[in-house]
């Protein structure tokens, strides 16, 4: 019998190793961020991680500091792992704001040289992750030609337009946040919380999903499943379901 549900968040992230490369779904402080998996990983303590995400996030605000955006209760993002010192490198499109009075761990650690930050245009980030999942060895795109993003990259004119060659972004683990799952790992999302999650699911060697709800096999219509279970390895279910981040 196929059943990808694991006992809890701690079990879900137990084998994440020092030096692992991690995809994290989500798009800023709105939902779609696997907060419980991130907390479990902070507790687990794996170090020297590479974090690949659109927006790593701001972590936990210092007392009295202003938050960049409103968040749900119990929200945590990749900034937490930067604050705990578990991340050595971030690959992202949006490192985040750095304004006086704000907590911005990425910027702090980047300035002291403790953290490497590699910037990738958002669509190129998505497409490079998709390439890893879809077995594409490399691809030419116009985005970035004639800018700093072309540095070190092969260039070629195709149909009269300059293109640069981009390679897949691969990872050991994908931390994904979805709304509902069945035991096969079929997933659906809610609204714009979908974002990078379905792209990352299946693009890493191991895909771990945090969901609000586990539902009976067959209760998700085959027409509306966004992530087919083939891309999912483990499911951890939130005790509080939809409440909180």
């Amino acid at each position, binding site marked *: 019998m196929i059943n990808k549900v694991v006992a809890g968040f701690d079990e879900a992230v137990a084998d994440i190793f020092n030096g692992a490369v991690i995809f994290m779904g989500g798009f800023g402080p709105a939902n779609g961020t696997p907060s419980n998996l991130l907390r479990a990983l902070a507790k687990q303590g794996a170090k020297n991680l590479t974090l690949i995400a659109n927006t790593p996030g701001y972590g936990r605000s210092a007392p009295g500091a202003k938050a960049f955006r409103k968040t749900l209760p119990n929200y945590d993002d990749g900034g937490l792992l930067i604050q705990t010192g578990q991340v050595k490198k971030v690959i992202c499109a*949006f490192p985040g704001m750095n304004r006086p009075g704000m907590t911005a761990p990425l910027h702090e650690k980047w300035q002291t040289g403790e953290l490497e930050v590699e910037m990738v*245009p*958002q*669509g*190129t980030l998505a*497409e490079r992750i998709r390439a890893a999942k879809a077995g594409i060895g490399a691809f030419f795109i116009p*985005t970035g030609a*004639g800018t700093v993003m072309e540095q070190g990259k092969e260039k070629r004119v195709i149909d009269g337009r300059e293109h640069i060659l981009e390679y897949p972004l691969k990872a050991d683990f994908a931390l994904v946040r979805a709304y509902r799952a069945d035991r096969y790992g079929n997933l659906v999302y809610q*609204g*714009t919380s979908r974002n990078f999650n379905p792209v990352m699911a299946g693009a890493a060697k191991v895909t771990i999903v945090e969901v609000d709800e586990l539902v009976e096999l067959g209760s998700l219509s085959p027409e509306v499943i966004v992530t087919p279970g083939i891309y999912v390895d483990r499911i951890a279910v939130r005790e509080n379901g939809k409440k909180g981040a």
Partner: protein
Amino acid sequence: MKERLDEQAMALRVAREFKDGMIINLGFGIPTLAANFIPEDIEVIFHAENGCLGYGPMPRTVEEEDFHLVNATGTFATPRPGMCFFDHAESFSMIRGRHIDLCVLGGLQVSEKGDLANWATGVGRPGNIGGAMDLAFGAHHLIAVMTHTTKNNEPKVLKECTYPLTAPRCVNLIVTDISVIEVTPDGLLLKETAPGWTAADVQALTEPGLKISKDLKQMEL
């Protein structure tokens, strides 16, 4: 000192470029404000990089705020009939594949060739590229909207950008707080000036030479 347009007025001028049926992506800042000035007789569809087409305006009450419905600037949006959701790979296929009719981005600098710099100053911070580069390369038509000069009154419309480029030769129209300038193969064409501003006034605050449109007019606001 002559009066410059405020952000709302610039946003209003940008919205005049919206045509019926357009798929439009609005960047952070002034561009986002343009959504408040859609001409009444047309229907446009807004694209959000984070996977939404056809979202509605910001919620008016806290109760309407839904953490599962935010636009690409991270602010809450509201549902609208005909809206749909998709993932980031699909969203940027729309952008890279040239399916976005019009994109409006803020600018730090624009060159006379239409090069745009809007994501980093190149010093001190890594910058935030976000989806700006993808949009600047992919959109069919690109409007850069910005104040005409820096806080120190230095030109932001330049012969060459000094900040890292978002994309070369991508801007079609520049809307500033004192002018509307079209980027043409022959250089910059001044089409409109803000009320009270002359072509000479605008030229004085612009590094490259401006051609003056035969139909030069005052911006209608």
